[in-house]
Structure formats: C-alpha cells, structure tokens
C-alpha cells in the first residue's frame, strides 16, 4: 500500500517533468505560436463586431480611474474611454463587457485572450512591451510616495529601514525592486488592500502612480504625497494582445482622433478633477492620444 502510494507520486512527478522538458524542446521550433495565431485570425475587429461587445479590462478598485460605484456601475476615467471606444467601434457605448482586473493580472488577461483591450492604468514599460502591444498613450505618470502628515517622506533616502507598501504588478513595485532592493516592500494584490494597509499602519509609506495618489490624498487629509515624482515620467496606454496589429492600429487612429477633439481633457474634468482638486492641472496628467516630445 505504502509502496504503491510512493510509486504513484513518483510516476506523477516524472510525468510532469517529462511533459515540461518535452515541451520546451519541441516548442523552440514553433516558438511564438500563440502570438502567431492571433495574426492569422481573419480579423480581430470583425471578431469583436461579430460578438457585439468590446471586452475591456478595467480596475474595480482604483477610483477615480476605474471603480464600481454603490449602484454596481463601472465608473472612472478609464471607463469613459472604454465607453467611447465601444461607441466608435460598435455604435453603442453600452456594448462594453467590463472584466474587472487586478494590477498583476493585466498581462495574463491579454495573453489568455480574456479581453480585447486593457484600460487599467497600464503604464508602458520595456518588460511589458515584450508581453503585450501598447497603443498611443492617454495619460502620463510618475511614481509618487504618499505618507502620513505626521511622518512625511520627502525623499527616497528617508525610506531606508522602513516599510513601503506597493500593489503587486505596478511600476512602483518594479522600480523599488530594481533601484532600491534594500527597502522592504509590503505587497498587496489590490489597491483597496494597499490603501487600507497604509491607513492601518502596516507600512510607513505607499508608492503608486502619483496621479492615483493625488486623488487619494485629496480625500484623505491625514496623508500627503510628500514625494510626488520618482524615477522617469512614464506613459499610460491601452494595451492589446501581442501581435494584434489590426486592433492596435485602429486604436492609434482612434486615440489621435480623440486627441483632436480634446477628449481626454474633458474626461479629466468629468472624472479626475473632482477627485484631484484644484492643485493639479490637467496638463500634468493628461496626454491627448499621442506621445509628447
């Protein structure tokens, strides 16, 4: 009996390992098969039209960018854009299927073809560009650090020996891991949890996209974004599955057209301004559909 159990486990284990090895050998020849597939499909846009809905990954816990209000409706800056995309592509702004995501799930949602577009505060980074294709940007962002008024953090040096809260899969996490491995990070799956943890004193500060922090600190007067910009200025852009050029090109044209009508400034006034207050100007955050030089 005992022997049998051990044997069966060994068998299972070898099976797994063999499967893994075998695949790694054979797949090298047909590499990038998955991404190739999406190119081959007749037309990504036709597929969406046939389905009748645009599947968009948005945050559900990141007001004012993407959140769900007390009536269960998706709201926020990203959602405004999602609605507009649906309107221009399918003729009806309600034809959006919102897939609620967490920061670290964004790449996998695209890779596993669960969504067409990610509109979830997705910052363009070299690592991510290897995994997905980014369209033109619609926001710009740097990493900010928010801390309690009683012990404000004004420089990275002050963080030495302290705990910094981050949300998994964000640029803030990557930044600190690469540039300041000596600082202890406390990581959460969701922004909700990260902000709660900051309030509960589980860390000395929290690092996130500064735009998000401005809004949050504006509503939480006990906290301040004493360190408002860290690292490089980055862009936030819609992302599609790697190799989905058709949808990517459509998005770029669409974004430029929207930029022409100052769509994103309007969206800012509608969604972000009430949260950010008057201290921040729209031009600090918004990009009108293409990179600014």
């Amino acid at each position, binding site marked *: 009996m005992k022997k049998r159990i051990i044997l*069966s486990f060994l068998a*299972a284990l070898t099976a797994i390992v063999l499967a893994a090895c075998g695949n790694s050998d054979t797949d090298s020849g047909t590499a990038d098969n998955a991404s190739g597939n999406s190119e081959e499909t007749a037309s990504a846009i036709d597929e969406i039209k046939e389905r009748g809905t645009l599947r968009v990954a948005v945050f*559900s816990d990141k007001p004012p960018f993407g959140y769900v209000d007390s009536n269960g409706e998706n709201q926020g800056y990203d959602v405004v854009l999602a609605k507009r995309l649906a309107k221009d592509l399918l003729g009806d702004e309600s034809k959006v299927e919102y897939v609620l995501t967490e920061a670290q799930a964004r790449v996998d949602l695209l890779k596993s*073809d669960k969504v067409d577009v990610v509109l979830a505060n997705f910052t363009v980074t070299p690592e991510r560009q290897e995994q997905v294709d980014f369209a033109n940007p619609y926001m710009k962002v740097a990493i900010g650090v928010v801390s309690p008024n009683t012990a404000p953090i004004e420089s990275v040096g002050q963080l030495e020996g302290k705990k910094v809260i981050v949300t998994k899969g964000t640029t803030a996490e990557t930044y600190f891991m690469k540039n300041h491995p000596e600082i202890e990070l406390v990581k959460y799956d969701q922004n909700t949890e990260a902000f709660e943890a900051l309030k509960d004193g589980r860390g000395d500060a929290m690092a996130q996209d500064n735009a998000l922090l401005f809004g949050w600190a504006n*509503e939480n007067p006990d906290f301040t974004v004493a360190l408002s910009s860290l690292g490089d200025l980055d862009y936030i852009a819609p992302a599609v599955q790697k190799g989905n050029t058709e949808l990517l090109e459509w998005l770029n044209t669409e974004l430029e057209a929207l930029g022409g009508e100052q769509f994103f400034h309007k969206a800012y006034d509608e969604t972000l301004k009430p949260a950010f207050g008057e201290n921040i100007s729209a031009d600090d955050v918004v990009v009108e559909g293409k990179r600014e030089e």
Partner: protein
Amino acid sequence: MLNSGISILFEGINLQRLLLGLLVTLRVASIAVVISIVVGIIIGVIRTSKNKLVQLPFRIYLELFRIIPILVWLFVIYYIVPANFDINLSSEVVALIVFSLWGTAEMSDIVRGAIISLPKHQVESSKALGLSPVQMYRYVLIPQATKRSIPPMINLITRMIKTTALLTMIGVIEVIKVGQQIIEVNNLEYPSASFWIYGIIFLMYFCICFPLSRFSRKLERKWAT
C-alpha cells in the same frame, strides 16, 4: 463611528450586490457539487475494482488534489491552460473545472470507502440467501453504502462552499470581490467599512454552512448504528 458603519449596507444597492455576489459563489458551488456527485459515484464504484491498473490512475488523480492546495490548482488552470493551449476560459469556468475535479476526486473516495467498509459477511450472507448480484446491490449494499456516504458527502459540500472564498483570487466577481468594491468606494464616508463588510460576508458563509454541517451530524447520529 462603528454604529454608523453598518448603514453602509443600505447605501445604494450594496446589500443587493453582496447577495448577487453570493449567488455567483453558490452557482459555482452548486454546479460543481452536482457534477462531483454524479461523476464521483461512477468513479467511486469503478475504484472498488481490485485491478491495480484501474486503481492506480484514479489514486494518482485523488492524491494530486489532496496534496496540492486548491488555490494553486485555480492559479494553474487559470494561467497555464489559456496561455499555452489557445483555449479561452473565463475565471468562473476555471473555478467550475477545478471545483468539479476536486469534488469528484473526494466524492469518489467517499463512495469507494463506503462500499469497501461494508462488512464482508454482508456479501457472504446475501450470497448464501441466493440473491443475485443485482439484488445484492439493490437490497443490501447500496442502501447501506448510501447511509454511510451521505453524511461525509454533505461535509464535502460544506467544504466546497467554504472554499469558494478563494474564487476572488482568480478574479471571479463573487461576494468578497463585491465587498471589496463597496469598501473602496465607501472608505471615506465609513472608515469602518471593512469591519462591517467582512463581518457580513463572514456571517453569510456561516448561515449557509452551519445548517448543512448540522444536518450531516444529525444524519450521522441517526444512522450511527
């Protein structure tokens, strides 16, 4: 401050949303339970076979689900399958697959255990009385095995319902996720939101699982002889 916290539930349609979230949870659980029972019984009966070649694969299958945490299974199916095999699975379908596979494995073990644990002399005396194999199963073995497997089966159902809490971690919009959305939006107005929301969800699970486990214990006692 705490007293006012509970009123968060009556803000907008929050309570309704929580209940709808709970419904998603229960939908996954109940479909998986039905599949598990049906397939589990079949596999359970097959597993009573004395043939080692029949036993071994099912045994490995069962042990894999016993050894690897359900949360890990959820992640594995959620991330690995669609990315590598060009199949699109929604998180709810992933949950259904994992829960059904797990429930079937456990269910088959319950059924097998119930049949095997029947005293040998029950078979022998049925044969001695001249019952045909079908009659033996129909009148002697199945009624006894059923009594033995129903209480642990209800326990398994309770466990499956409890484990649905993990679905939030692969992005199923169920009761916990909805709770978190409510917390996020209402945090400012109700600083104690998480205390109340998590408290309520805690209570919801209890209200579903408690009667079930109570029921199974009652049956167990009733059928103890």
